[in-house]
């Protein structure tokens, strides 16, 4: 099981969740953040700190954002399991679902 970052994160990327994660499994894309489903240990520390409430437990993702689970998984298709976002650094791309989102007004 894992936690999932959904639509409210797009163009926000507050990163409060990254500070809380004990295993550094939240990776930075261009427009949003992504939780590595295999590296996530289900500790739940990220969920309450998101200022835009973008993080959900896998089973609790709202119906309108259920595709974000797949997006969080597929984002890592060619990255594998890097073992820590700090070591990898920001990734200069997004999953097509995120890339296709309308730009959020400031």
């Amino acid at each position, binding site marked *: 099981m894992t936690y999932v970052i959904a639509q409210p994160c797009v163009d926000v990327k507050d990163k409060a969740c990254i500070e*809380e*994660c*004990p295993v550094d499994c939240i990776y930075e894309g261009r427009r949003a953040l992504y939780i590595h489903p295999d590296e996530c240990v289900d500790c739940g520390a990220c969920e*309450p700190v998101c200022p835009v409430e973008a993080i959900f437990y896998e089973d609790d993702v709202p119906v309108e954002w259920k595709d974000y689970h797949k997006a969080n998984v597929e984002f890592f298709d060619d990255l594998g399991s890097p*073992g820590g976002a*700090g070591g990898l650094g920001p990734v200069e791309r997004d999953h097509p679902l995120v890339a296709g989102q309308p730009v959020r007004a400031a």
Partner: protein
Amino acid sequence: MSTDLTLTTKDFKSDQEVRWCPGCGDYAILATVQGFMPHLGIARENIVFVSGIGRSSRFPYDMNTYGMHSFHGRAPAIATGLACARPDLSVWVVTGDGDALSIRGNHLIHALRRNINLKILLFNNQIYGLTKGQYSPTSEQGKVTKSTPMGALDEPFRPLSLAIGAEASFVARTLDSDRRHLTDVLRQAVAHPTPALPWSRSTRTATSSTTAPSTPSRTPPPPTTPCCAWNTASPTGSPRTPTRSSTTPRTRTPPPPSLSPGSAAPPRSASCATCSALRTTG
């Protein structure tokens, strides 16, 4: 002990809800151990986790193996009996800095020197978590806690020194947040040679305590007791290092460098906010 099993991580997850505080490093250890277990090649029914009392000691409930949540500090004694009676089992002891080094001090040193086939995982968060924030045998000197409002007076234990002093044959330290390093340590612990005839180990131990050995020169016993100490303390200088008050300056041994290739700075502390808060609250 290899078999033709194809077990997965999921096979080792029990149906019990994990009840640690959000963000606790114990989640990372649990996930790593559950991920590592399939590679042991041992059937689940031949694996036993024995724990004591404390936050770490809830571990057996989350592993879908045999397990015993015993009482405070006595897990090595119970595990010793189990390992002696059933050398075919893979016996793991899960403990914390309070459970292992306080009430269990006596049992720990004897379990280590006896070379029984056990693997002891010690989760060190330098505080008594379950009972809400008293200082532990690894809390630093001067630590202000609920039971030491004027700062802890005692010199803390160094778990590794203690283990080596007790003649442990395998000792290791790692960080809960470094999954690769942790997995590697587990692998080395398991690879630590086990005698083919474990029953002779027990017999030899009993004999040597009562009569002089019959062999003229005492051959050092092959190592059989891996002991792994997991230190979840934050590396000095990490942004999540809790504030420590210290009345006397002390030299801190830096944590070992990560074995994961490509990682630059040492990983962040995995101590959760609750334990950090407990350590900073007077």
